[in-house]
């Protein structure tokens, strides 16, 4: 290889954890998305080129609600324990407060981050799981960020036009071809 390719500049869009130990992140390159799974010692990359990206599908999960309920119960029990004591500055109450604090912070963080979801990207080869996108808010932000980039790489279409063509294609009737990518 005589000519060196210029290094790709990546910008992080999202990050998360998988199975408590694996870290995952989603990066945006010049013309592709890069999904990274890292163990800390190795990194696995999956590239999804913007010209091939067919869509984003996010399914809401119950993790957010379950976490809220669990953390809420712990915080509520600790709060009842603290409120029931006569001396609020007793060592037992302070210890209970310290135990409650991480759960309270966790609960507030979970509430602020919003509902959880499982996100997949539709590609010509099927669905690609993106573990870094675990919150609906992040997915909405990603979609908003992708729209102008997709219009550049795939050509822009009106929502009604795109959905009508898609419905026609799905049902098998005649359709208008997809716009060719803008060079």
């Amino acid at each position, binding site marked *: *290889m005589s000519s060196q390719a210029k290094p790709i500049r990546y910008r992080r869009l999202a990050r998360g954890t998988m199975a408590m130990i694996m870290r995952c992140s989603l990066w945006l390159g010049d013309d592709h998305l890069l999904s990274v799974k890292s163990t800390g*010692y190795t*990194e696995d990359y999956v590239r999804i080129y913007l010209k091939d*990206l067919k*869509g984003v*599908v996010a399914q809401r999960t119950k993790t957010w609600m379950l976490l809220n309920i669990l953390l809420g119960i712990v915080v509520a029990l600790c709060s009842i324990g603290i409120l029931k004591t006569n001396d609020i500055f007793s060592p037992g109450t302070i210890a209970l407060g310290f135990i409650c604090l991480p759960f309270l912070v966790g609960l507030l963080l979970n509430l602020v981050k919003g509902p959880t979801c499982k996100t997949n990207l539709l590609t*010509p080869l099927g669905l690609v799981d993106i573990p870094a996108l675990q919150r609906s808010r992040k997915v909405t932000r990603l979609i908003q960020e992708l729209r102008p980039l997709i219009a550049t790489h795939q050509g822009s279409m009106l929502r009604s036009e795109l*959905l009508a063509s898609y419905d026609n*294609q799905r049902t098998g009737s005649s359709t208008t071809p997809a*716009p060719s990518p803008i060079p």
Partner: protein
Amino acid sequence: MTTAERSLFPVLCSSCHTPLPAALCNSGEAIRCPHCSTQLQIELFPAILRPLHEGGTVGLQVAEGEASCFYHPDKQAVKICSSCGRFVCSLCEIDLAGRCLCPVCLEQGRQTEQLSELVTKRTLHDSIALNTTLLPILIWPITLITAPIALYLALTAWRKPSSILPRTRIRIILALLFSVLQIIGWAALGIFLFQKWNS
């Protein structure tokens, strides 16, 4: 339109796998599957309409006076490989991050990991070196063995390819620093014990 030309991936509900009507897509907010009521957020892009088998054309036959493909002498050259400079036909041209490569250069780039666009896995040698330096401190006597190993790993990690993502060399520098400090510490302890033994 033939069946093969149709998109093979109609958007299905992730939960019940029922095809979803287009009206539910691209609304910008979460919608419910009409069958299982699972909340979904779907955004479709124009590529969903593209047939699956869209690929390169076979290439035109070369006419007299025209340049031919290096790999297919009977085909008309349409591009020049940006790596080796060979003429390639439309069948051989491979577009990679805005560059045109021939199949041979692509394979060479993949084997030598010079094309970062084709890298699917990387080992983070700097993190391995740093953890080999720091983690054994928890059971400090074993640093006598691990410190030289960590120093070797840090030195070799300097030239090895690391993550394709933005990453500084701070881990290697720290690994070098701590491993050298550990070696100096053990050397100082050895000298001290040797002098004590002699006296």
